C-alpha cells in the first residue's frame, strides 16, 4: 500500500473484525431477551414472579398483626377472547403472613369451547417478590365450554418482609385466548 503504512491490520483483516462485531451485536440483541428475563426475575420489576406458585408455608405466629396491607384485584380480558372476567371482591385488607382466598369469575360468551390463559402481574414491582400465591387459576390453562361460567380461586400470602412503605398491592390478571389449545380442541371435537 502506497498510502499510510498502517501499523494495525490489513484491510481484509480489519473488515473481517468489523463484520464479526456486527454479527456479534445481532446476537447481543437476542441475548438481551434472557438477560431481561433474569433481571426481572431477580428484581421482580415486571411483576412476573407472580406467575409461579410458592411452596412456602407460613406459620400463624409469623402473622404481622401490627399492620394492614390493602390488596386490589384487577381483571382485564384481551380483545381476542370473548369472555367475561371479574374479581368477586375488588379489594381486601390483609395481615402480612396470613393465608387468604379470593375468587374470580369467568364466563365464556361464545358458543364454542375456548381455552384461556391468565397472565398475572403484581404492582408495584418491588412488592411482587413478597406476594406469594399458593394456588392460582393462572398456573394452568382454563377450558370453558360454550356459555359455561366458572369460579376460580386464588390463595395468597403477603410476606411479612414486605417493605413498610408498601401499603397497597395490586394483583392484576390479563386473560388471553390460548389459540393453539383452542384449535386443538376444535379439531378433536
Amino acid at each position, binding site marked *: 500500500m502506497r498510502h499510510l503504512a498502517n501499523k494495525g491490520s490489513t484491510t481484509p483483516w480489519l473488515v473481517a473484525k468489523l463484520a464479526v462485531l*456486527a454479527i456479534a451485536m445481532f446476537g447481543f440483541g437476542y441475548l438481551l431477551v434472557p438477560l*431481561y428475563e433474569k433481571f426481572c426475575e431477580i428484581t421482580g420489576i415486571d411483576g412476573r414472579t407472580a406467575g409461579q406458585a410458592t411452596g412456602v408455608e407460613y406459620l400463624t405466629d409469623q402473622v404481622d398483626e401490627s399492620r394492614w396491607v390493602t390488596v386490589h384485584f384487577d381483571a382485564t380480558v384481551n380483545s381476542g377472547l370473548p369472555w367475561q372476567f371479574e374479581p368477586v371482591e375488588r379489594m381486601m385488607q390483609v395481615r402480612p403472613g396470613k393465608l387468604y382466598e379470593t375468587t374470580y369469575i369467568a364466563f365464556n360468551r361464545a358458543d364454542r369451547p375456548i381455552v384461556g390463559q391468565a397472565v398475572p402481574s403484581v404492582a408495584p414491582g418491588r412488592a411482587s417478590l413478597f406476594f406469594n400465591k399458593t394456588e392460582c387459576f393462572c398456573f394452568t390453562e382454563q377450558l370453558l365450554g360454550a356459555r359455561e361460567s366458572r369460579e376460580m380461586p386464588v390463595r395468597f400470602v403477603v410476606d411479612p418482609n414486605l417493605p413498610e412503605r408498601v401499603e397497597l398491592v395490586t394483583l392484576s390478571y390479563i386473560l388471553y385466548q390460548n389459540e393453539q389449545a383452542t384449535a386443538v380442541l376444535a379439531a378433536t371435537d
Partner: protein
Amino acid sequence: MSEATTHHDDHHDHPKGLWRWVVTTNHKDIGTLYLLFSLVMFLIGGAMALVIRAELFAPGLQLVNPDFFNQMTTMHALVMIFGAVMPAFVGLANWMVPLMIGAPDMALPRMNNWSFWILPFAFTILLSTLFMPTGAPASGWTLYPPLSLQGGNSFAFVIFAIHLMGISSIMGAINIVATILNMRAPGMTLLRMPLFIWTWLITAFLLIAVMPVLAGAVTMLLTDRFFGTSFFNAAGGGDPVLYQHIFWFFGHPEVYIMILPAFGIVSEIIPTFSRKRLFGYTSMVYATASIAFLSFIVWAHHMFTVGMPLGAMLFFMYATMVIAVPTGVKIFNWIATMWRGSMTFETPMLFALGFVVMFTIGGLSGVMLAIVPADFQYHDSYFVVAHFHYVLVTGSVFAIMAGVYYWLPKWTGHMYDERLGKIHFWWSTVWVNVLFFPQHYLGLAGMPRRIPDYAVQFTEFNMISSIGGFMFGFGQLLFCYIIWKCARGGEPASARVWEGSRGLEWTVPSPAPHHTFDTPPVVDDSVAVHKDELT
C-alpha cells in the same frame, strides 16, 4: 504543496450514460448518488409531513382517515431517518472522506457500490406498502408491539426493507472505518484528521454496534407476527416492554448517528468562515467519543413512563443529563472559534450558525425531557415532537445543507448563487421556527403526538404550525433549484473556494477530478486542519 493533484483523464475507460452510475465504484459518483437519493427521499418524506400538517390545520377530521394519518406519521419518520438524513451523511462521507485524508478512493469500492444500490430497493419495498391492501405500517416508526403486530401482512415487507437498510448502513460503515484507518496519506496522523473524519469514524462504530440490534428487534417482531414466537406477546409469556428496551438500545445511539456527522460538518465550516483554526480540537475529539460512549447507557429515558424502579429512573435521568456536558463543550468551542475571528457570513456559515443556535434550543428541551417527573407530563406529547425536530431539522438537516453549500463548488466547479442561498437560509430559518416552536406550547398544554384530531383549544397553534410547515416545505424547492443551477454553470470556483479554507480537499482543483490523490500527498501543519503540537 498541491502538485499531488496530478490530473489524469480517463486512463481506463469507464462506461458512459446511465449504466455508468449503476456499475460505478468511484467514491465521488457514489457520493453523488447517495446525495441525490437523499434529496428525493427528503421530498417524499416532506410531502408526507405536509399531509400531516394539512390534516392538523384544523380540529376534526377533514382530509384523510385516521389510519392513513397514522401511516403518514410512521412512514414520514422512517423515510426521513433512514432515507434522507442517514444517506445524506453517507453521501457526504463518500465524497469527502477520501478527499480529506488524501486517499484515492474508499477502501472497498465494490462494496461501496452495493451499499448504495441496496437502498433504492429497500425504499421501493417500504413505499410499496402504501399501495398494499392492508396499507403501510401505522404504529409509529418505533413499531411498538402489541400495536405493530396487529396490522396487516404488509408488515413483512416493512421488516424486510428495514433489514436491507441495516445491511446497507453496516456495509457503508465498515467501508468508512476501513478507509479512515487504512487509507490516510503519510503525515495524516489521527490527531491531524479533520473533525468531520473523526465524527464519522465514531459514527461508523456506532452504526456497526447498533444497526444489528435493530435488525434483531425487528426480526423478533417478524417471528412474533408470523411464526408463533412470543418474545413480546404477553399471552405467550413475553413482554412488550422488552421490545422497548431493545429498540431504544438501538434508538438512542441512532439519534447520535444522526447528529455526530453534523457536529463534524459544522466544525469544518465555522473555522473556515472565522479564519481561525478550530478552538479546542482535542477536546472536540474527546467530547465526540464520550457522547458516543454515553449514548449506550441512556436509552431508558425514552420509556420513563413504562413503570421502572426509582433507582433505574434516577440512573437514566442523570446519565442523560451528563451527555449535556460534552455537548456543551462542543458548543462553547464553536463559539470560542468565532471569538475575535474575522467572520464572514456566506450561506454555509449562515446554516452552521443557525445550527448552533437552534440545535441548542433542541438540546435544552432534551434536558427538560430528561427530568423524570417532567417527562411524565411531556412524554408522547407535542413537546417531544418539537424537541426532536429542533435537533433533527434545524440540527442535522441544517448541517447537511451547510455542508452541501460548503462543498458544492468543489463538486461542480461552480459557485452557487449566493443571493439565492441566503434567501434559502433566511426563508427556512423563519418558517422552521414558525413550524416547530408552537409545538412546544402545544405539548406543554397537553396535545398528544400522533393523533389526527385535537381539542379545539389547540387550534391556533396548530394553524400557525401548519402554515410554517407549508412555507418551509415549499422553500426547499428553492434549494433544489440552487443545486440544479450550480450544477449547470456559474462563476468558476477556485481550488481553495473559500478564503479561509484549510485541509486536503481544497488542494485539488474544482471540480474535483474523477481520480484524486493517486499519488499520496504529504501532510504537514500548513494543510492540516489541526496543528499537531506533538510532531
